[in-house]
């Protein structure tokens, strides 16, 4: 299945003044192997990244991409293998050593500090005398050179997510790296912002002969932005191809290891054709306009402790048996909406109705009692109690099921847990082990089991497939669809547009704490949704 490695000098016009292209690759990883216990994260991985190219590193979650890059960054020590930089073998013992040899990485979750200004964030951690004016000038210079327009005096808290990412990139570029690694950079960006990012990256490699590694599981952007692709599966490299000589289907086949046919799975990979998806959802049975509204949020206003408007007049309806997809760029009020529906915040104005009855927002447990089930974005925050047992986590908010007025019945709790563990196929050595000891996917199943087992009217799923592998994604999406078919009104909040398009009957877009518009699935095309995500109302 392996495509021959494209070798030799780059055919890109990557002859910048600073670093002339040389026949020696910028990075060569040879036979890198890393085991965690019995799990082989990287199995004799070879990777070559040339100067002047954007190199895609494609693979599912858990394929070993991140481990490989952490080894290059000195965060993980490999068991075997060699790292060669510019033709010289090196030992990267920590991130400082990596920086010294010119490796920098933009992580999926930023490390910028909101309270500080842009230039302060950029210089953070440096030793020696601080010259604010010079730092600000440098930020502007870098911005001008790469088209990374950002005001050095702005407070990071006031920036959009896309702008924050720019700060991260400026921060890395100021260190003048030879090799820049970006980990899933587009998950926080609008379509337009993603396009901008790729333009910047192109400039970085073309004009200056640097190397860029783009880690992604989205076929679309790999095809769009990279020169060559290395595909990993189960810790090993399965294929190396030149981007121009391949297509999405064959990339997907290499990544998953089999023909990709499942619609949702394909959607999760960014593969779906819109028309096809719309047609199928229609066929699956739109509950239609007449179905009862089970969840109604009316003109919700919430302000953060710092006075920022988190929800700014948000209104939406979810009908019985439908999946309403809520698309939007991360950080536009989705988290607050999740908190509102978990009884964690009070409304400044507006109200919430569940099945026609008003719910006292912010009163502990009110939403759960009204029949709102929530699969939170961060399950460790409001989803579960890591230090309590699996069995206890399965009854957190409906203790009535296993207790009398005063006492909890341990036998009934164990039976209840056993039944759910069986039904939701939760892998745990025993119901009595602490939640903490379960894998992320299994913790997610515990949450799902608990929330669905009390027959909710509404299911709110926030980024439900985030960080899950393909099998788990399939399980989760099937459960969500099954819930809707049973008559539950589902609100699916996701930043993965493809996921929203694949599952929803209707699509709403959130921006700046309000709904930009709602479209039936059939009318939801990428262009209109993209405009709304960028802040233009329908």
């Amino acid at each position, binding site marked *: 299945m392996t495509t021959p490695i494209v070798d030799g000098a780059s055919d890109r016009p990557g002859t910048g003044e600073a670093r002339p292209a040389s026949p020696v690759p910028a990075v060569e990883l040879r036979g890198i192997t890393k085991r965690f216990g019995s799990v082989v994260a990287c199995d004799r991985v070879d990777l070559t990244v040339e100067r002047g190219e954007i190199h895609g590193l494609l693979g599912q979650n858990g394929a070993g991409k991140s481990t490989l890059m952490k080894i290059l960054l000195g965060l993980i020590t490999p068991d075997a293998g060699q790292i060669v930089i510019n033709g010289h073998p090196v030992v990267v013992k920590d991130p400082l050593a990596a920086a010294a040899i010119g490796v920098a*990485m933009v992580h999926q979750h*930023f490390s910028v500090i909101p309270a500080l200004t842009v230039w302060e964030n950029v210089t953070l951690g440096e*030793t020696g005398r601080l010259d604010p004016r010079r730092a600000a000038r440098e930020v502007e210079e870098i911005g001008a050179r790469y088209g990374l327009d950002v005001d050095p005096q702005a407070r990071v808290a006031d920036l959009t997510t896309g702008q924050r990412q720019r700060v991260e990139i400026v921060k890395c570029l100021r260190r003048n790296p030879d090799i820049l690694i970006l980990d899933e950079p587009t998950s926080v960006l609008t379509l337009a912002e993603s396009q901008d990012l790729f333009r910047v990256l192109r400039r970085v490699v073309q004009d200056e002969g640097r190397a860029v590694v783009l880690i992604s599981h989205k076929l679309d952007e790999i095809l769009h932005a990279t020169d060559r692709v290395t595909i990993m599966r189960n810790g090993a490299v399965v294929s190396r191809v030149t981007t121009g000589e391949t297509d999405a289907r064959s990339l997907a086949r290499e990544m998953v290891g089999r023909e990709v046919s499942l619609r949702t799975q394909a959607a999760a990979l960014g593969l779906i054709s819109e028309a096809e998806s719309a047609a199928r959802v229609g066929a699956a049975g739109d509950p239609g306009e007449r179905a009862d509204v089970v969840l109604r949020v009316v003109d919700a206003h919430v302000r953060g402790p710092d006075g920022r408007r988190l929800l700014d007049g948000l209104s939406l309806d979810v009908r019985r048996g439908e999946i309403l997809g809520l698309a939007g760029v991360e950080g536009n009020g989705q988290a607050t909406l999740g908190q509102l529906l978990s009884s964690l915040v009070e409304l400044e104005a507006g109200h919430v109705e569940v099945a026609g009855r008003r719910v006292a927002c912010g009163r502990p447990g009110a939403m759960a009692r009204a029949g709102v089930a929530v699969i939170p974005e961060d399950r460790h925050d409001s989803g579960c109690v890591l230090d309590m047992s699996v069995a206890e986590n399965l009854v*957190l908010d409906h203790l009535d099921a296993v207790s009398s007025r005063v006492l909890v019945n341990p036998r009934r709790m164990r039976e209840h847990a056993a039944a759910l563990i069986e039904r939701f196929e939760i892998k745990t050595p025993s119901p009595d082990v602490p939640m903490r000891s379960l894998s992320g996917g299994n913790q997610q199943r515990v949450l799902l089991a608990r929330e669905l087992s009390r027959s909710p009217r509404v299911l709110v799923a926030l980024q439900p497939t985030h960080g899950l592998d393909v099998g788990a994604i399939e399980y989760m999406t099937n459960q969500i669809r099954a819930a809707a078919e049973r008559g539950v009104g589902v609100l699916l909040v996701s930043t993965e547009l493809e996921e929203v398009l694949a599952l929803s009957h209707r699509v709403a877009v959130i921006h700046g704490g309000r709904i930009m518009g709602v479209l039936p699935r059939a009318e939801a095309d990428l262009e209109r949704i993209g405009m709304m995500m960028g802040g233009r109302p329908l």
Partner: protein
Amino acid sequence: MSAADRVGSERLGTASAAAAVGDRARRIAVNVALYTLAFATALALSALLVVVATDASPGTVFSAMYEGSLKTGAARGLTLDEATPVLIVGLGAVIASRAGIINIGPEGQLLIGATTATAVALHAEGPAWLVIGLTLVAGAAGGALWAGIAALLRFTRGVDVVISTLLLNFIAAEVVSYAVGRPWLLQETTSNLQKLPQSDRIPEELQLPRLGSFPGFNVSSAVFIAAALVVVVAFMMARSRWGFRLKMLGYNPTAARKAGVSVALMGGGALLLSGAFAGLSGGVMLTGTVFRLQPGFSQGIGFNGLLAALIARRNPIAVVPVAFFFGALRAGGGFLASTGVPRFLVDIVQALLVLAALFPPLFLDLARRRRELRNARAAARRTAPVPETVGAAA
């Protein structure tokens, strides 16, 4: 899930179970080593101090500590008597810490509890058993009232509980000293000579009966109140809905709120309850050992109970041996003082031993935090590592 997956998962389960057993053994070994080290250091330092500051030998000091706390029946009884109020306060503190609330104020709550208990004991009429009961209830109510001030401040004005409970300790001491200095409040009336700033002694029939008599083993029946409370608290924490929700609140307040646990009701209730335990402890001291209210009534029992809970962490059963340890320390320290070793030295020896008991959990906690901090720092460095040469390069 395929059959192969299932097998895999079971194997994984067994492996992690085995790892858990190994982990547990390692944790126990680390704890034993730390405690041994801590106590050895404390004893060595004590010995050094005794040699430097007095002409007594360290051997006589430790044998005096032993003689005063464990050697004879009377000493063991005294240790139990001293441990009883510490245990009751400690149980209350465990309840608060289970809910994630740090109540620094048991000392003050104990004093106020003792004050209300004294008022009831000196003024209530009725059969002795009833008045004793009312006295103890009044003690608990007084303690809860005092903790309630902190709860009220917390849940209406957002005042930090640590600070309010700490400061209320000082106010409580002033309240007691005011009450026992005023003839129209609680100052003694029976003495026909000098009126001291203290209350009347509570009548003989209101004093809790003692089992056994000197010089043999003898102990106040208050110890049974404490034992009963241990059973009740441990049972309620393990088996009741209240215990379940308390635990949820302590471990994850956000998840608890989502699941319908009100932080104000549950957390405030836990704070009140811990205050009630401290106040009850004051009532028990009044009816069991001290018999009258005086300015120095609390004798640091509130703080001892707090420390006991700190060592026992969230486990109500673990408070039992820790309280016993504190009781032994108090009894032994009193005896040591009576051999002529200066009071300050006795205090230092006691403090060193308490520190030794506190050190291992705190050390492990600190080690864990340092590890987490290091990980957090590493995460921060990942994005933008700063080489030493960056200033020059840029």
